[in-house]
């Protein structure tokens, strides 16, 4: 019996080895081991018409076909809808391909790392993608200063965009290379049922001794009181006070970061410049007094939240808010559009208010730091595949300029509910008018809170490290266990310190 078993294994091995020739191994090694950077587009079958002399800088690459690999967000759907205009302007065809973020990550990663040129332009999501792929994208500095290419009239300086959003999505680990231009933003604010706050304000004040209102100074402790109050089964309009988004990955990483940062501006690592990040941040701060203290209170906080929170991301918690399962939730600005849509949401029609993320509770701060409204976000950009030929890079740059222009961003916001990144759009009079009800741009309702939250001392843009993906998985798993009361705060902090330091090899 066992000899029969052995012969099977042996046969498998023999067959395999027999079939393999040295050349096969070389072929394998050759194609994978040397990702080519700056490889002059030999694999691309598309014809790039050489620069046409004289005249329109926009039309110099007419006839080219570009592929933009993007997440399926409203702005990219809008660009897809406007692709005819792009063709009229430049004579170039743009093929906007959309996918779920993780699929985008996979395809873009295989493309970039393998030295291939399947996608000319990539959607550059600041933390999940740029931290890994920044080195594989073209440095836009040379194109920005190139007169032979169309440039945006506003320029690309820091103040043109939201606060340091150019750094967040464009500069990684140093200021030498600019890898993407900001294209959309998702800033976290607090969604809350203003109508219920007004309805129960007397009752709440009787029980808790202070008014039931949500302001810029509302702390995480106040939020706990609100949650406790609304969890009361006698209040029938909602089932729970608050919902979170603890889904493993980006949603959870951002969600847990907010209360952590609010208390003493605590971060996992110290950065010289958190907006730029660093390749190896060294040992992490998990296990210090503040981290353990914050975790203790977070446990109580999450215990009050909707039990499904640990498996929700932004759309999961959004659905809960829309269907009246929760009275409050921290979520990203672009969801205002769906919340204000009466076809989908019972929280539409003026029932919802938008405020800054909660402030840290001073009595929970033990490291002497400040109590801030910990705000975080995802700023997406457009980046250009570094494996392309120079001409294709330039052609792609023309698209990037067009897609991030102020005119287009405003149109997308007004017509489809986009998320503009240019200050000129965010401060445009029409948009400012839209920030108050009644409004035709529901997303704009969140901008007052957004604009206050994205500047220091409230904002936490990082951590921008190359191993961000692995860090977010490890951290979410351990913190979820802690929030589910499967693990104590000290133990969690210890485990995280060990694992994250192991990940960085310190």
């Amino acid at each position, binding site marked *: 019996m066992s000899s029969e078993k052995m012969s099977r294994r042996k046969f498998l091995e023999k067959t395999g080895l027999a079939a393999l020739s040295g050349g096969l191994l070389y072929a394998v090694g050759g194609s994978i081991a040397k990702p080519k950077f700056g490889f002059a587009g030999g694999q691309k079958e598309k014809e790039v018409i050489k620069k046409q002399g004289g005249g329109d800088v926009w039309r110099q690459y007419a006839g080219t076909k570009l592929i933009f690999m993007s997440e399926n967000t409203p702005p990219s759907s809008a660009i897809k809808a406007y692709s005819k205009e792009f063709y009229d302007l430049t004579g170039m065809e743009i093929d906007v391909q959309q996918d779920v973020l993780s699929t985008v990550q996979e395809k873009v990663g295989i493309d970039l790392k393998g030295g291939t040129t399947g996608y000319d332009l990539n959607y550059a999501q600041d933390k999940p993608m740029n931290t890994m792929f920044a080195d594989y994208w073209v440095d836009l500095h040379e194109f920005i200063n190139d007169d032979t290419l169309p440039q945006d009239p506003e320029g690309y300086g820091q103040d043109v965009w939201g606060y340091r959003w150019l750094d967040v999505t464009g500069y990684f680990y140093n200021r030498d290379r600019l890898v993407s231009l900001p294209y959309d933003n998702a800033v976290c604010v607090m969604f809350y049922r203003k109508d219920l706050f007004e309805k129960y304000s007397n009752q709440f004040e009787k029980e808790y001794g202070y008014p039931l209102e949500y302001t810029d100074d509302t702390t995480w402790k106040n939020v706990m009181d609100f949650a406790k109050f609304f969890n009361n089964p006698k209040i029938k309009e909602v089932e729970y006070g608050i919902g979170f988004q603890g889904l493993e990955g980006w949603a959870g990483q951002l969600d847990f970061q907010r209360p952590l940062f609010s208390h003493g501006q605590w971060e996992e690592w110290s950065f010289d410049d958190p907006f730029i990040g660093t390749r190896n941040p060294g040992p992490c701060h998990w296990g210090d007094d503040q981290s353990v203290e914050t975790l203790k209170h977070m446990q109580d906080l999450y215990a009050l939240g909707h039990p499904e929170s640990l*498996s929700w991301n932004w759309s999961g918690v959004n659905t809960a808010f829309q269907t009246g399962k929760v009275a409050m939730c921290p979520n990203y600005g672009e969801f205002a559009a769906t919340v204000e849509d009466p076809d989908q949401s019972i929280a539409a029609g003026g029932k919802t208010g938008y405020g800054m993320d909660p402030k840290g509770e001073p009595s929970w701060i033990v490291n002497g730091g400040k109590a801030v409204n910990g705000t975080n976000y995802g700023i997406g950009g457009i980046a250009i595949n570094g494996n392309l030929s120079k001409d294709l890079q330039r052609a792609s740059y023309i698209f990037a300029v067009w897609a991030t222009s102020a005119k287009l961003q405003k149109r997308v916001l007004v017509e489809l509910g986009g998320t503009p990144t240019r200050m000129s759009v965010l401060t445009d009079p029409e948009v400012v008018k839209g920030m108050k009800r009644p409004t035709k741009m529901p997303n704009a309702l969140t901008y007052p809170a957004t604009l206050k939250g994205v500047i220091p001392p409230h904002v936490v843009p990082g951590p921008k490290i190359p191993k961000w993906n692995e860090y977010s998985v490890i951290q979410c798993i351990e913190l979820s266990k802690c929030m589910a009361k499967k693990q104590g705060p000290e133990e969690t902090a210890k485990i995280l310190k060990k694992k994250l330091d192991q990940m960085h090899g310190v």
Partner: protein
Amino acid sequence: MVIPVKILGQFRGDNTTYYNQQSFRKEIALVTNNGRELSVLHKKKFIFSFYGWMLIPAVILLLVITVYPFFWMIVMSLFKVAVRPGARNEFVGFQNYVNLVKDHLWVKGWGIQAKYVSMSLTLEFILGFAIALFLNRLRKGANVLTTVFLFPMMVAPVAVGFLYLYLFNASFGWYYWVLRSLGILKKGSILGDLHWALAGLVIADVWEWTPFMALILLAGLKKVPLDQLEAAKCDGAGSIRRFIDVVLPNMVPIIVIGVLIRFMDIMRYIDKIFVMTTGGPAGVTKTISYYLFDVAFHFFELGRGAAIGFVLLLITLGLAIAFVNILKKKGVQR
């Protein structure tokens, strides 16, 4: 061709023996010896024989499309993939494999994989057998019912994932509502709960694939030789005894096929996990195949991923071989 027609007729319709060998044997006793080894059909050496030519196209295509990935996997697992362009992949030998042992998520992933696979396969087997037995007792309508029962198998795994994501959702899921209303689930969530999440996945898998098991087992039931059953009944054996001594041994080959196919697929597919839980919450549904997906496509550490994949392949193969061998011992050889 008188003899073959008679044989064919007997073969098609009958459920018991295949054909009457006597008259047939006499005819070709001159040419055949033991049956297969020296068959008249095997005139030339295999490679150049008719059969060789039949086999070669398939094998070549298989070699081309499967051998290259196999060797890519092995070679890649010995490297650490470059993180910056222009840098070469770093040869690290067996370091990736050694690191796996220290990797807590990898170790835990195997535990979860074992739980998931064993729970799903056991339930699918038991329920599938029960359904097959009950279907076998029906005289009318068995065919129609079988077709209807097969519907879940026709739904793509991704779609089943969305189906159960919808049904288990705490905000609007009907199964969630039923479980809460019955009091089985108290104030909680299914896919967000550390204990229920894996159960939710198992439920979805059982719904989708039990019909497949039932179909295979039903086919096996129909092949149990009636004469053996009759003989056992005459000997006075009760139905349970008959089941253990006659039915099961005769069904061993088909059980092997069914379980093997399910086992292969459940080790490979991550569609449902990808849609329903993405490995969470707190990593309780992060089976080893999902962890592989994470490492390869989210962390982009292809070397480490190849190592995980190779170990996964070896263990899958090993378990499959062991399973087949164990059951071969217990089966009835025809």
